[in-house]
């Protein structure tokens, strides 16, 4: 291996639920037909969006907090090796056991052995993205161990047959109250057969079932929001209190932790405990913040484990542009503002990680060349709403474009297209090649646009184009194209005004000085607009 010989770390992609299983456009097309999903997503994302806007705009230092969050995470990623070893030392010194897992499969195996050592067949779980990534529940099931999800929405998903989460914060966002009532009536033993769809009654039914699990199961499994390097402290923020139950009641606690989850010091939490709840649920503060540092004799779990998992994260770290995806704190703000997510829904992304962050994380964790991960970076109109919403300033649009470049390179490296000339990739290549030739010369543009009148033959009497063939037919499935003009601007201009000299010499106007002189004009224009045409906001 040349790479090893040169001392270069080999890129090792992860396994597990980090793949898109079919091309995103096809998956999305099916999901778009699900009216229930569309309605729920539209309602929920708009509601969370409004709440998030309110609690982030009320903080005068919100932008500074975002910058601080971004910089702390960058520092962690730049020194990840040091922080990981520091964390391991401190976690171990305080009575915990550290396990290292190269990928999802190893992480699952470690967890299984630890559970089997306790001789139990049922474990409680706190909602965790890391274990969803590794597919832990299904893995344990193969060995006769039932993992009980204790987060209400995760419980709904788990009890719903063949269902899976569609949102990282509100995993059952695709379900409505009636569906939840039906699932509970069917799946919860001893539940009131006349259970209504009233949220309080539904929550009570869940509480009734879970309380017994909390009090009897001896092993719990969690993820983690933040691990503190200099103390070995773990932190989980949550809303329902089920996490607190799982973290304090069992004898054995096994925590799955992606290697990127570290913060250098406890003080750094002051930034993240502000950023996370406000970005996530749109709350000023989450109801429960649990922190635990090692084993305290006679209080809480006495058998404490953490599984530090790579699963492709070092591959992400190796990409200078893409590595910022590791800064993600799983708040889900990006999906709540994403117009693509809002319509296609979380399942369309295949992976555990949906939405804009999923579109940059899955292809990097699992490899862009694997399964249909290469279609994920294209599942965006590049509107940029995700970047503005991200509490740690991950420039998702830039990473999407960067990964599009990698996707095209990977596809070109493959050579032949499976679908021949009808293959969408072949058509895309042809379009891009033609456009490159055309856009490489103004003269050629002038000549080509002389052909514009010919297009009138296509548009006909309706003065529009309503059907195009092949890949670009996607445009005319939903929209017309106007009749092109009889001449391009450049040809008209050349005819009328072609004589202007290119060089006139003299000094340039000082634009910066003009802008300084006019710096009040933006506010002035806005005030005049308000006076001329006030916008009447109707009560919502």
């Amino acid at each position, binding site marked *: 291996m040349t790479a090893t010989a040169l001392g270069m770390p080999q890129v090792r992609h992860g396994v597990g639920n980090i793949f898109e299983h079919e091309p995103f456009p096809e998956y999305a097309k099916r999901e778009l037909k699900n009216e229930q999903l569309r309605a729920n997503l539209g309602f929920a994302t708009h509601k969370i969006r409004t709440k998030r806007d309110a609690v982030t705009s009320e903080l005068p230092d919100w932008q500074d907090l975002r910058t601080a969050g971004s910089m702390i995470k960058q520092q962690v990623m730049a020194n990840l090796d040091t922080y990981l070893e520091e964390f391991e030392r401190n976690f171990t010194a305080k009575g915990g056991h550290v396990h290292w897992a190269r990928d999802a499969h190893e992480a699952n195996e470690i967890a299984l052995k630890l559970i089997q050592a306790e001789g139990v067949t049922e474990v409680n779980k706190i909602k965790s993205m890391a274990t969803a990534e590794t597919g832990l529940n299904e893995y344990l099931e193969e060995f006769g161990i039932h993992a009980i999800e204790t987060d209400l929405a995760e419980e709904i998903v788990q009890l719903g047959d063949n269902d899976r989460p569609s949102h990282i914060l509100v995993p059952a966002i695709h379900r409505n109250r009636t569906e939840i009532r039906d699932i509970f009536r069917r799946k919860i033993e001893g539940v009131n057969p006349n259970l209504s769809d009233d949220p309080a009654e539904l929550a009570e039914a869940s509480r009734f079932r879970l309380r017994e699990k909390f009090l009897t199961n001896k092993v719990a499994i969690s993820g983690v929001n933040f691990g503190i390097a200099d103390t070995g402290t773990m932190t989980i923020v949550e809303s329902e209190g089920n996490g607190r139950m799982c973290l304090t009641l069992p004898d054995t606690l096994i925590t799955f932790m992606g290697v990127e989850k570290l913060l250098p010091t406890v003080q750094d939490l002051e930034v993240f405990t502000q950023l996370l709840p406000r970005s996530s649920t749109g709350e000023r503060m989450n109801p429960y913040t649990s922190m635990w540092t090692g084993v305290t004799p006679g209080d809480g779990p006495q058998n404490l484990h953490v599984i530090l998992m790579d699963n492709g994260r070092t591959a992400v770290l190796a990409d200078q542009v893409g590595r910022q995806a590791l800064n993600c704190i799983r708040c889900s703000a990006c999906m709540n503002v994403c117009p693509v997510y809002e319509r296609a829904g979380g399942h369309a992304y295949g992976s555990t990680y949906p939405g804009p962050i999923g579109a940059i994380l899955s292809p990097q964790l699992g490899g862009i060349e694997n399964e249909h991960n290469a279609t994920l970076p294209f599942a965006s109109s590049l509107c940029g709403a995700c970047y503005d919403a991200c509490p740690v300033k991950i420039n998702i649009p830039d990473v999407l474009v960067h990964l599009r470049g990698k996707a095209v390179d990977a596809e070109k490296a493959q050579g032949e297209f499976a679908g021949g000339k009808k293959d969408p990739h072949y058509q895309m290549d042809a379009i891009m090649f033609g456009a490159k030739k055309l856009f490489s010369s103004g*003269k050629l543009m002038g000549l080509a646009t002389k052909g514009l009148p010919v297009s009138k033959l296509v548009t006909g009497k309706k003065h529009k184009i309503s059907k195009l063939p092949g890949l670009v037919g996607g445009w005319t499935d939903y929209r017309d194209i106007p009749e092109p003009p009889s001449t391009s601007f450049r040809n008209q201009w050349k005819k009328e005004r072609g004589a202007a000299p290119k060089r006139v010499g003299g000094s340039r106007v000082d634009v910066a000085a003009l802008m300084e002189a006019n710096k009040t004009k933006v506010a002035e224009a806005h005030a005049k607009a308000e006076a001329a045409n006030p916008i009447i906001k109707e009560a919502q």
Partner: protein
Amino acid sequence: MRVALFSTCIVDAMYPKVAAATVSVLERLGHEVVFPQGQTCCSQMHVNSGYFDDAYPVVKTHVKAFSEWDFDVAVAPSGSCVASLGHQQPMIAERAGDTATATAAADLAARTFELSQFLIDICGITDAAEQLGSYFPEKVTFHASCHGMRLLRLGTRQEDLVRTVGGLEYTQIEDQDQCCGFGGTFSFKNADTSGAMVADKVQHIEETGASVCTGGDVSCLMNIGGALSRKESPVQTVHFAEILASTKENPLKVSGPVSVTAGGK
């Protein structure tokens, strides 16, 4: 000032009337407008589609075309294409190992302005009716294009100029900051999702009762207009430069095929 018009490829080939309207507004303010004939495209279509190698000659063409001319500033009737210059062109040239073009691209981008930026921040225009003679007696709503809003941080500049046009009645669209679903090649590569996005946008536009939807990027307006046309809606889309160019003496006609004629000088 000597202003170099960066028409953008889509305006040049599909909406020459928008370039003509831009020229009309600029000349009304006494500026000399030149059009570097070598220009083609900002390269954004290639970059955003992941075709970085193919984008490089397009970037070089743009930089070369403008460097052949003396001018004070370049102006374009597009937020998206202007944003692409500074945001993407240097990256593409750097990637090709062409540092000279990267530097020249960044310099050119620094003196290229979106039309509303130029009018307000450089020319000090705050009232279109009074200072530009703009007159357009229609009920108008406005779509805020993403790249102008989030990459150039145009704020309400375009919208404010429209709202001060004489005779114009303004109405604001629900979810104004939501993408229309265009997204370049996204519009046909992810046609169904894009179609769902523009369907919602069109619904919100129709809810306002406006006869015209305006905006600062013809690409978005072509998307919105195409969807309106498909459902045979009477609502028309026009670029805000056309509304600014429209005067009492030479009013903008909004219906009918696109052509080079615009409102009067």
